[in-house]
């Protein structure tokens, strides 16, 4: 129904002058659009730059992904059609990299969320030295990823002088044994070792987010529930946990984005050996070790598309983060 039709029905006794006043918003809208455009104009170069800087490289990557281009064979460069994409999907090592990426992400995000929540629940209580404990708990997240990977590889997991085997030796010696088990962690449990180092780094992050959620919890509601006779478990189950849901989802989302892209831990601790090569490492190996620009680009494009599909699905369907916006 347009306003011109509606006007006589709902406001039959308006004077022509009043009618003009009524229509004025349209002109104002046009003016404010012009105004907005004028204000945006100085921003245009910056926006073009952003588009060029972010989208052009991706466009070039897409073009290269259809090319036969190995930098070490300059004379054989040409158009490859879908060959690179075919080898992305048929290559066994790419498929296992997809699987490794999924396992790594799910395990690391899941475990660090659970641990982070437990620690946050403990830190939410008041006790002496809470500030100091909180700072220490955050420390692993502040370590540079490369340094953390090196620390785990050499200081903790080394079979001869690592801390883990040292502790085993010590514990066994308490019981008078001189032949403690000396586990070659990176060789026997390579993926677990990488996961442990990442969980160690990401638990503090999850803890911070959940702690923020806990501290924004309205205390009067909890008090009311307690008055009504709810126990600690019931309060957690029906009040705290639903309140935390959005924070847990945010932690899970941010964590997943970073763990899917993880490179440092895999590169340094195992160099992609023993089934730990994830997608970023595989693309790195294709690009820098094989110098196969075409195939590496195709792998990159597939990863980006896959990530977009999964992220969209997770955000729109499963997550409650955007609920408010959709309801509006």
């Amino acid at each position, binding site marked *: 129904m347009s306003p011109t039709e509606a006007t006589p029905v709902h406001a039959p006794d308006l004077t022509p002058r009043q009618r003009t006043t009524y229509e004025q918003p349209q002109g104002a809208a046009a003016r404010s659009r012009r105004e907005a455009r004028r204000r945006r104009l100085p921003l245009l170069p910056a926006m073009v730059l952003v588009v060029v800087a*972010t989208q*052009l*490289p*991706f466009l*070039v*990557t897409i073009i*290269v992904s259809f090319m036969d281009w*190995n*930098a*070490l*064979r*300059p*004379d054989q460069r040409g158009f490859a059609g879908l060959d690179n994409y075919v080898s992305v999907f048929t290559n*066994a*090592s790419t498929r296992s990299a997809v699987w490794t990426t999924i396992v790594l992400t799910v395990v690391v995000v899941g475990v660090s969320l659970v641990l982070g929540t437990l620690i946050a629940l403990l830190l939410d209580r008041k006790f002496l030295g809470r500030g100091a404990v909180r700072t220490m708990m955050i420390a692993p997240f502040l370590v540079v990823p490369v340094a953390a990977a090196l620390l785990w590889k050499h200081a903790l997991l*080394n*079979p*001869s002088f690592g801390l883990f085997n040292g502790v085993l030796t010590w514990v066994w010696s308490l019981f008078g044994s001189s032949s403690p088990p*000396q586990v*070659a*962690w*990176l*060789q*026997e449990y*390579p993926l677990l070792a990488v996961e442990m180092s990442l969980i160690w780094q990401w638990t503090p992050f999850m803890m911070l987010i959940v702690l923020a959620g806990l501290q924004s919890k309205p205390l009067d509601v909890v008090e009311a529930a307690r008055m009504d006779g709810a126990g600690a478990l019931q309060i957690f189950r029906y009040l705290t946990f639903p309140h935390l849901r959005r924070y847990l989802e945010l932690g899970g989302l941010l964590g997943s984005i970073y763990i899917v*892209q993880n*490179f440092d831990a895999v*590169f340094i601790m*195992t*160099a*992609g*050996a*023993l*089934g730990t*090569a994830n997608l*970023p490492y595989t*693309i*790195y*190996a*294709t*690009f*820098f*070790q*094989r*110098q*196969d*620009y075409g195939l*590496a*680009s195709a792998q*990159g*494009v597939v*990863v*980006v598309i896959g990530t977009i599909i999964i992220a969209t699905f997770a955000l729109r369907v499963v997550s409650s983060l955007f609920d408010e916006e959709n309801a509006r």
Partner: protein
Amino acid sequence: MAARRRAGTASLIVAGLTVALAGCAGAGGGSSDGGAAAGGDASGDSAGGGGEVSVIMVNNPQMEDLQTLTEENFTAETGITVNFTVLPENDVRDSIATDFSAQAGQYDVATISNYEVPFFSSNGWLANLDSYVEEDAEFDQGDILEPIADGLRGEDGSLYAQPFYGESSFLMYRADVFEEAGLVMPENPTWDEVAALAEQADGVRPGMDGICLRGQSGWGQVFAPLTTVVNTFGGTWFDENFDAQVNSPEFVEATQFYVDLVTAHGEPGAANAGFTECLNAMTQGGVAMWYDATSAAGSLEADGSPVQGLMGYAPAPVKETDSSGWLYSWAWGVQESSTNKDAAWEFISWASSQEYEELVAEELGWARVPAGKRASTYENPEYQEAAAAFYEQTQQAITSADPLDPGVQPRPAPGIQFVAIPEFAGMATEVSLGVSAAIAGQTTVQEALDNGQQLAQEAGEANKE
């Protein structure tokens, strides 16, 4: 013009992939940017001097010594400013391959090796050094050890790089432990004898394993020693016609032997142990033997090393062949598109000279001399005295290595612990993942090599005429 456009496209792609990789290449990129920036500054300072050279090199100790000695000696003498970019081995290879393949000319000189020279030169990325060598009588090309110089020639027979130092491989062992346990190292050990010795030496001292062998994945890690074992067991990566032989009985037997030996009597966590881990194990008394690069002896015999003077050295163990040491050299190559070729040669001529070795000896001691390239080094009485424990074995290992005929059958491309074709690095790295997995017990040798056969065949096809 075409070259410049190609360089532009290549750097765009690099930028694009850097975005896609979410910072994977951050470290390498950042460092080379730093190098370039430093170059800019330096050119301002040295205006009117003897020009400048940009050098990208690996961060090995010998190169770091070179960096500290350059300004006071080379630059002071010639007025040529040298801008160094120093990166770890893997990163340096990546950066060099990217810069040279685009002929971007960011670096004039790069540390390459006898692996890259054959195909870098046939792609036209390296400057021909013949005329420089001819005009520079002082350089004395005749003094360069023949096997090393041969590895740095292109298909056309011209020289495309000059060595900074060279190495072969040999067996290092704890002479004191052997004596204590009543073990005798044969003069020319076979692999079967070494396996028996490893079994006897395993556990002679508490916590001491029989032998350290690299098991870490990577073409330059596990496959460096393993390929020499394959060679002497009668195997090869490719036959004459570039058909892959990776799951041939000899290749499988050699790999099975290697995996069994390191699993039964090797260092703990062998699937993750590379050169550095073995060097550590050897110096800390964790192993009785170690088969690896001759250049490791310098570290074992250095002042302050706990095993200084306790080591014995034997030639690389053999089976079917008379010798089996590998051959490798870190060498200086000049980029074809470089505009500072004359200055670049002056730098190379100085860094690879006998005079430079003497300078290092004078300033830092004979143990740190970048040896293994010049015959005169091994005739020098001072070096003979300083490196008495290992210099003869090193020289013999280098001169007895034959990169063109390292096994029992004719080869399609040069190389002992590698095959000098562009596809080798990527292919062998992927195959090495299987070997590492076999050492860790995740897969069998046969399975890993059957998979490797397929990868190698693909790489071979690309090289068939």
